[in-house]
């Protein structure tokens, strides 16, 4: 039993069987990567984990509770944070405000309208946010407009926002897609650091083998909507089935 248990998940879009019989388990405090060629069903699987899609069959359990049918904010409140392919941050707000929102969400839940607390100072939230920015090496950018930062910094901020909630599980959807090499390496270093320093489980969906092999403890290869093989990175590297899936039989 892992922290996240996906069992017999299947999803069909019209005539296309996007996922079939996907069963995989993410163990606590590991980094589990899901890779696969285009169209393998990686994004569909991710969307089933975060409440965007409901699979036709099977179950998705997080810490023993089903996530199916819950809305995005409920799933977050269960302890799952998500990093998007294109960084989703609050572009119109300053960096420090960006960082305060998830901390408020963690503290106050999905909705709080409290006249008294609105009249109190929010020092401790501000302090936590500043602390987190320092951890992310972004303290000097605290008053910047979030939208005006580089892609790498936006990614860093987004990851920081997710971490500030101390999630049990961090979902990363191609975190380095469309990034310059330097930004990619920075992001890998950041993720490695997070993995080493925090008690956190990471599930990562990725295209870039370099990223996967430098981070993952276990890798699941998805092909045509079904898991092909699951193993450690060393074993995946030379696996004939993986080569086949990526390059096709003819090669």
């Amino acid at each position, binding site marked *: 039993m892992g922290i996240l248990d996906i069992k017999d998940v299947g999803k069909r879009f019209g005539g296309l069987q996007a996922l079939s019989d996907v069963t995989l388990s993410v163990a606590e405090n590991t980094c589990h990567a899901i890779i696969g060629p285009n169209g393998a069903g990686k994004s569909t699987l991710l969307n089933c984990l975060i409440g965007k899609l409901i699979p036709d069959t099977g179950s998705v359990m997080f810490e023993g509770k089903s996530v199916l049918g819950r809305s995005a904010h409920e799933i977050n409140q269960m302890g799952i944070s998500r990093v*998007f392919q294109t960084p*989703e941050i609050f572009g119109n707000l300053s960096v420090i405000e960006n960082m305060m929102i998830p901390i408020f969400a963690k503290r106050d839940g999905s909705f709080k*309208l409290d006249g008294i607390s609105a009249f109190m100072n929010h020092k401790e939230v501000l302090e936590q946010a500043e602390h987190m920015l320092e951890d992310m090496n972004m303290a000097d950018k605290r008053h910047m407009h979030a939208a005006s930062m580089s892609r790498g910094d936006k990614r860093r901020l987004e990851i920081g926002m997710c971490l500030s909630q101390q999630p049990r599980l961090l979902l990363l959807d191609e975190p380095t897609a469309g990034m310059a090499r330097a930004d990619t390496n920075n992001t890998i270093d950041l993720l490695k650091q997070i993995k080493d320093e925090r008690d956190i489980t990471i599930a990562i969906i990725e295209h870039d083998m370099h990223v996967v092999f430098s981070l993952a403890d276990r890798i699941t290869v998805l092909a045509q909507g079904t898991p092909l093989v699951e193993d450690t990175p060393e074993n995946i590297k030379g696996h004939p089935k993986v080569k086949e899936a990526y390059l096709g039989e003819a090669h």
Partner: protein
Amino acid sequence: MFGLDKKDTRLLIIVAILTFCAPIILNPFPADSALAQFNAGYPDLMQRFVIFGIFAIGFNILFGLTGYLSFGHAAFLGVGSYSAVWMFKLLSYNVVPAIILSVITAGLFAIVIGFVSLRRSGIYFSILTLAFAQMSYNLAYSVLTPITNGETGLQVYSNDPQYLKGNGPDVTHLFGLEMRSILEIKIAGWTFDFTIGYYMCAVIMLISFYLAIRIFRSPFGLMLRAIKANQTRLNYTGISPRPYMLAAFVISGMYAGLAGGLLASMDPLAGAERMQWTASGEVVLMTILGGVGTLLGPVLGAGFIKYAENIFSKINENVLHSWFSLLPDGLEEAVVWLFARFVGEGWHLTLGLMFMLIVIFLPGGLVEGGQRIARAFGRKDKDASSSTPAE
């Protein structure tokens, strides 16, 4: 002070001084001079400035912070007015119960309308609110005649019960202080009017303004701005946007109801036309003209539009002839004809042109204009430009 930071305190104090001195500041010209018609310091108009200021402040909490454009806010204004007049009819001319009830009924209406309209966002939200407001207008105009008195408008009649009236005055009052009671001060050629009604509205406006600052700066305000910035991220941050939106909608509806109640308190009448879509559009114009999402903008915009409406529309051809009498006859006719299109009944044309110019050249509204002027004069302390956009 009052839990505000230095900058906001200064802004509040400046607004308070300007509001309290308005009867003097707005009457810069001697009463019998030719320019006296540009004086805005008479009670009826000043009351409109602050009442519509409240309306616009409330509207800005919804539109400025969350970006949801409601096109039906006049419905709450109308509901507030009707409730207030009913209080006059049933209890007495005291404005306190009237104002309280107008805020409560507008809030209840906002819960219902908001609950339905907020199922959609963007243009669909705007259309839904517009539809609700037009429905309310038509209900008030014809269907609900027993409650609203239809096209005649609701007013107080001498045979109304007024259970709590006793020996109280026959005009609207605040525990005996009549709204219309006036203190007229004449200094040399100048005349300054101070009325109870204006000062009551001014104090309520300042309280509303203060609350709006608190909302802007609170975690609640931060969430509303986050809704405008990125709803996807907000969802995945564990926040449910809908209750926040509904709360913002209801608060801004209550502001509108308060404005409606005050309008009725100044003049105990309520008509369906107060709910018409043009009235809803007007508050949108006020907010955009002044500066969306800024603290001061909506108040400035409200003052600007109400000034234009009352002052430009009073200028007629005779006045124009007296201004241009020095020009040769033919030319005078031509100039007067040209200007006459933009004043009097044509003041909407002036307003339209101004609106276009401001939206194109000053997207941040009058507040941005003020900031640019301040910068041009090279003021070092940037925060002195009294209203930084909420960012």
